[in-house]
Each structure stands twice: as structure tokens, then as C-alpha cells.
């Protein structure tokens, strides 16, 4: 069977009869899991930085566990494993008039707790990167701990946190494809189903790859704009515009000609 170009062009942006819904599910899972993951990550970071040993220890244990186990294993344990053991079974629920299927709940739950571990480490790094003098200045002005955290530490930590957080979202966009294993008909599973009907696996998966590339590329540009906005108080904002920033994200930092020769 030869490669069918016309089939690829026809179905590039319409991988199956359920393409639109699949795309929606992919984006929905990525965005919701990222939001939960970021909130959880904040708590994990604060817990890890706690002076109370038990709390920081528990947070460290959490990070170790969720970063050390493959995501797919986490998902299957949560959805299939817990149900098989009779411990917990996800059921379809209705949120704001929308049915949230059991498998999708398990997937979002799994993505969120995994993201919480990674974001926890990213936030911790960001908070630790804030100069102690900034905290002392806030204290000396009579600001309390919570106000100092909210108004001084976190906004400054964001400069360090946002670039890796953007990368995490790129990873999340792609990782949602794992939900197909639980039977969530997102982009990958709808394509797979259609491929099974048409036997055009190669064409359809090239099309699917292009679809993921478009998602991650669009996100990269959005991320560049956010980073440029956050860097507005740096002295050298003019040196790297959003386009150069996006190029760096997509292809890595440029090598200066002189250094390449050396």
C-alpha cells in the first residue's frame, strides 16, 4: 500500500469524524490538569520549605514518588488498579451541566498530581532564588509573612518559574495522549479508531503529529509573549524580542559565530 497524499491532505485537520471533540478533550485535560497541578505545586513547594520536619519530609516523599513512577503506570493504577482492588471506582459526574466521564476524571487526577510534583520543585527553586534582602526590606516595612509571600516573593519567583512552567505545559499537551489508554477519546484515540477503520495508519499519524506540533508551537509563541511581559522591569528587555524568544524556545539558543569557530 503506497502513501496516499490526498488522504493526508483531506484529513490533516479532520483526523476522524470525532476530531473536533477529541481536540477539545485534549485541550480541556491539559488546561485543567495544569491549573490543578500549579495549585498543588504551590502547596508542595511551601510544604517542602516548611521548617516543620514532618511536613517538608512528606512533601519530599510525594515529589520522589510522583516523579519516579511512569505517568502511564500512575494512570492505570488510579483508574484500573484501584477499581480492580475494589478500593475506589471513578464514576461519571456532572459538572456545570457537562458530563465528566470517569476515565477523564482519572486522567485529569493523575496528570494533576504528577504535575504537582514537578511544579513543586519548580516553585521551590523560584522561591529560593529570591534575594533575602527583598524579604528583609518587606519585614522592615512591617509587612507580615503572608503579604510578603503574596506581594514580594511570588511575583519575583515568577521570573524564574514561568519558563520551566511553560515547558511543563508543552509536556502536558503531549502527555494527555496517555489518557487514550484509559479509553478517553482525545486526539490520539479518535485518530487510532479512525485508522482502524481506514487502515491509513501512516497518513493519519503524520497528520496527528502535525496537529500536536501546531498545538505546542502556538503555545510556545504565547509563552514568549508572557515571558516578555514578565521581563519588562529588567534593564535589557530590548535585546530579545518575542520572536527571538520563540526561536530560542523552539530551536535552542543560537551559537554566536565567534564561539562556534573557537
Amino acid at each position, binding site marked *: 500500500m503506497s502513501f496516499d497524499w490526498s488522504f493526508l491532505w483531506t484529513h490533516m485537520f479532520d483526523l476522524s469524524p470525532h476530531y473536533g471533540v477529541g481536540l477539545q478533550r485534549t485541550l480541556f485535560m491539559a488546561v485543567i490538569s495544569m491549573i490543578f497541578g500549579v495549585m498543588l505545586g504551590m502547596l508542595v513547594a511551601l510544604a517542602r520549605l516548611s521548617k516543620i520536619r514532618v511536613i517538608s519530609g512528606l512533601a519530599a516523599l510525594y515529589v520522589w514518588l510522583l516523579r519516579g513512577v511512569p505517568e502511564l503506570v500512575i494512570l492505570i493504577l488510579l483508574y484500573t488498579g484501584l477499581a480492580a482492588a475494589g478500593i475506589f471506582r471513578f464514576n461519571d459526574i456532572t459538572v456545570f451541566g457537562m458530563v465528566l466521564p470517569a476515565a477523564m476524571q482519572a486522567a485529569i487526577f493523575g496528570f494533576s498530581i504528577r504535575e504537582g510534583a514537578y511544579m513543586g520543585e519548580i516553585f521551590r527553586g523560584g522561591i529560593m532564588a529570591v*534575594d533575602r*534582602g*527583598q524579604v*528583609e526590606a*518587606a*519585614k*522592615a516595612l*512591617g*509587612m507580615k509573612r503572608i*503579604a510578603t509571600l503574596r506581594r514580594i516573593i511570588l511575583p519575583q519567583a515568577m521570573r524564574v518559574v514561568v519558563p520551566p512552567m511553560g515547558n511543563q505545559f508543552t509536556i502536558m499537551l503531549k502527555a494527555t495522549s496517555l489518557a487514550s489508554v484509559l479509553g478517553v477519546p482525545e486526539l490520539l484515540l479518535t485518530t487510532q479508531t479512525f485508522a482502524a477503520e481506514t487502515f491509513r495508519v501512516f497518513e493519519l499519524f503524520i497528520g496527528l503529529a502535525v496537529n500536536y506540533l501546531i498545538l505546542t508551537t502556538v503555545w510556545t509563541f504565547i509563552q514568549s509573549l508572557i515571558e516578555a511581559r514578565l521581563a519588562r522591569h529588567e534593564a535589557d528587555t530590548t535585546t530579545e524580542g518575542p520572536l527571538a524568544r520563540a526561536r530560542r524556545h523552539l530551536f535552542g539558543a543560537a551559537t554566536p559565530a565567534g564561539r562556534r569557530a573557537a
Partner: protein
Amino acid sequence: MNKSDVVIEVRGVHKWYGELHVLHGLDLDVHRGEVVCLIGTSGSGKSTLLRTINHLETIQEGRITVNGRTVGYREEGGKPVAAREDVIAAARAGIGMVFQNFNLFWHMTLLQNVIEAPIQVLGLNAAEARDRGRELLKRVGLADKADVYPRKLSGGQQQRGAIARALAMRPDVMLFDEPTSALDPETIGEVLTVMEELAADGMTMIVASHEMGFVRRAAHRVVMMENGVIVEDLPAARVDESTGRIRDFIQKFH
């Protein structure tokens, strides 16, 4: 000056960092409107003393009061015990502090720096805080820099901004921790001028600094520290008559 004029009272203060004994039972009275210059080599305890006054550092023995009230601790059986966070914060709000490295919040413009604590801590409304903030920036010669981020300012401008930020809390006393040590020589003068104007307005100030020009023009007293104790305490007008450690110090460094 009589006893009731004492604003800052330091009595028998001891401070240890682990094994290291930094302040050895130190006593110091500062009166209302008085400008006290703290001198001494690095490691003599000047910075630590300033930082204990607004409780950025804890003390293990003795007492420190500002306007008759302890800062950051209450006394139990003659020993200082840490107070609740809101009590510490409220006490600090009345004590302005200026740091060697300015420590302006670099994610905020100069004006935002100046109005942040008045809004968060004193509960001023934004419009009122902005009006006062602009007035203070004008006073330190930075009226045109209100909307500029700190990283785009010179060291001298940042330090003047930091002074405006501290003044925005309407403090009773101002502590200056080596305010010109991190500055380029050409910007030191502009910071000292602001400090001298503040002194002339009657602000109670403790300044850890070796700027003898400032001492001669604005200080009332010079206090020399060595190894965590005060070794000489003279009226500023008479520093040149010193026969002790202050004379040695001035000869060595100036």
C-alpha cells in the same frame, strides 16, 4: 535633653550567633531628633545592633525599646521572648530602615515601591498613598522617576528611592545600615544630601557609616563600636578632640 526624650533605649543587650558573641551587654540611648553616627570596623557589631533594634535579629539577653515599647518580643522573667507576628510587624512599621544594598522591590516601579507598605500595612487607599508617594519622591529628587523600575536607576537613585519608601511609613526613627557603602563615589553625595535634609527636619536617626563629611555636617553624636561594645561616645562637634579609639579610627581610614 531629659529622660523622657529617649526614643531608642538599648540596655545590656547580648547577641550570639551560635558560639559567636556579637553584642556584649550593649547600652545606648538615642533622644528625639538626635542623629547618632555608628562607626567601627566590619565585624564590630554596628549592623547587628541596628538589626536588633527593628528585630531583624533576635536578642538573647537585655532589652530594647522604641518609644518605650519593646520590639518583637515581650519580657518573661527578665528574658526576651518572641512576640506574635502581627505585634512584631506593627512595631517595625514605625521604624524605618535603609539597607546597604537598597533592596528596592525590583518587580515594582519606584512609586509602587513607595506605596506598597502604606497600602498593605497602614491601610491607606491607593489614591492617597500615590499622592504622598509622589510628594516623597519629589523630596528625594526623583519626581521624574516614579514610573521607572529600580534596575534602570543608578545606585544613588535607588538608595534615595529606598529612603522615600521608608519615609512613606511615617517612621519615628530611621536606621541606616551603611547606606553609601555600595555606591559609586559620584553618587554618594546625593544620598548624603537627602540624609542631611532629613536630619535637619528633626528625624531621629542612627547611621552606621564612615562618611566623616556626614558626621561633621549632620551628626550630633559619634559612637564607636569594637567587638560588640561601645568604646567611645562623643558629641560630633568634638570628634577632633578625641584622644581614644575614635581618633585612631579616623586617622587610619581618612
